[in-house]
């Protein structure tokens, strides 16, 4: 496998009882690339992210991380191996400071679980990783603030920072722009662009403008299956994609084509 291909999904399928949420999806994430997955609601995007992250097992198919078969690896193991993810609903620790949030995430790589003597805050390695993550996420001035008091956009930045604190190589981002205003979106897009070199980024998003601005490749999912995948320009002019989205838009307006 070429050096740049960090994560691949091969024919990943997930069934829940009679429902096929993800239907033979294959994709690959390359270093230095933002690969966006878009689709209608219920298309299976979040389920796909959960499978790649290891939160739920695939019914069939394989996931490979840098050549290693991680299909049966549980989430913590994948995280330690270099997969980081952010959540659609913010999962920060609201009662701790921004710094504490990131330091704890960073501790995953320096767990020292049997060292009960040394205080956690004196752990130099996790402190360093946390400071780096905070800086990359653009939260340098906020390190001492209690996370629950941050604005929504800042919380989403912290969500990314916690993802970065484990120094991952693959970033699975589930709707990081959710609920953001124009200015916050700009900041987040700049952040993602800055993260691009060195990381393989999977971006699940609904904000089409943002997607077409930042993505290097786009995969479109409908009803659990991939209907198109390629460069943004190609996707934009793809007929199947237009039907899928146009059909949806028309239904929303209450008019049938």
């Amino acid at each position, binding site marked *: 496998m070429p050096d740049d291909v960090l994560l691949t999904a091969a024919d990943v399928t997930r069934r829940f009882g009679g429902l096929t949420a993800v239907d033979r999806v294959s994709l690959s994430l390359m270093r230095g690339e933002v690969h966006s997955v878009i689709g209608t609601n219920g298309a299976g995007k979040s389920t796909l992210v959960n499978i790649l992250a290891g939160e739920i097992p695939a019914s069939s198919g394989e996931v490979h991380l840098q050549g290693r078969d991680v299909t049966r690896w549980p989430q913590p193991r994948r*995280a330690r191996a270099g997969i980081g993810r952010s959540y659609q609903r913010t999962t920060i*620790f609201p009662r701790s400071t921004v710094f504490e949030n990131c330091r*704890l995430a960073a*501790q995953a*790589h320096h*767990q020292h*679980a049997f060292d*009960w003597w040394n*205080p956690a805050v004196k752990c130099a390695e996790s402190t360093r990783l946390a400071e780096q993550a905070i800086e990359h996420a653009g939260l340098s001035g906020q390190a001492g603030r209690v996370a629950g008091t941050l604005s929504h956009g800042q919380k989403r930045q912290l969500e990314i920072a916690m993802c970065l604190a484990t120094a991952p190589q693959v970033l699975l981002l589930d709707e990081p722009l959710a609920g953001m205003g124009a200015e916050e979106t700009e900041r987040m897009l700049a952040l993602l662009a800055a993260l691009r070199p060195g990381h393989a980024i999977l971006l699940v998003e609904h904000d089409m403008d943002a997607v077409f601005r930042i993505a290097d490749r786009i995969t479109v999912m409908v009803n659990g299956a991939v209907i198109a995948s390629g460069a943004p320009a190609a996707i934009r002019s793809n007929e199947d994609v237009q039907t899928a989205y146009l059909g949806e838009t028309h239904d929303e307006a209450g008019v049938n084509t």
Partner: protein
Amino acid sequence: MPADAVTTSLAARATPLLAAVALLAIFPFVGGKFYIDLMVTTMILAIFALSLELLVGRTGLVSFGHAAFFGIAAYATALLSPQASAPSLAWLLPAAVVISALAALGIGALSLRTRGIYFIMVTLAFAQMAYFVFHDMAFAGGSDGRYLYVKPVLALGPYTLLDLDRPLTFYYSTLAAMVAVYALLAMLGRSRFGHALAGIKANEQRMRAAGFSTYPYKLAAFVLAGALAGVAGFLYAVKDGFVNPEILAWHQSGTVLLMLILGGIGSLRGAVLGAFLFVVLKELFQSEAVFGSFAKHWQLPLGLTIIACVALMPNGVTGLPAQLRRSRVPVPHAG
């Protein structure tokens, strides 16, 4: 996560603790025999409560079966003690603690396969199983219980360093044990292990996403909590020289949870305070001087107190200042 904003200095935090220890140290010189005995019981219960605080307060695992480990250690102490000579503290205490830790390992390994409400029910069920083991089986004396005939000593050659048969020695040994357990848990809370547990309590999924395998952490906390409950169980067996199955009854598990809620979940001093408050309340409700012949129905006011405490004071006594502050000043919402 040490959620309290650490604005108080070390001296400010340590002073009340040191003062409390000092008070407890001079207590035997001012209190009568009855009160000394009561204080020892309270300190043993405080150790028991501290052990559960690690599980419930720090890791967020609500166990309704913690009495099992208290009782198993107490029984181990009584059963392993020879009939005619004084056992050595040096092996009896570790043995009791190891046995309850092993029990915690087995029960925890199975119970932690469940979450939330299942976990509460399963821990309760396993504790009940332990109760039946000691109640129905002959090796432990059945419902009659078992005596500890000679109290342990700590000896170095011919010199007896500690004779737990002497009340004052036992008092200070118990005090020392409580301080040691408190210090251990405080240190643990500041360590990486402790922070990880707090993170698991706050959001286990996020911890897993970061790369923490949470099951081993939870199991470790469960075993440690069981071991520390074992320390309390050992002291209990030595104190009265008698154990019976009722110490494993689920009412014991409920009582220790009540102590935590009374004192305030999430702080070590809350656990200790809760133990003291519980003993005070129980003595009050059982006092015929106050309640006359109604005193035998002391569980009624106790039950009402539990309900009132949870309903009105869910953060316990240590959480009262913050609760009062919050209710007086409207908090502006940010973000």
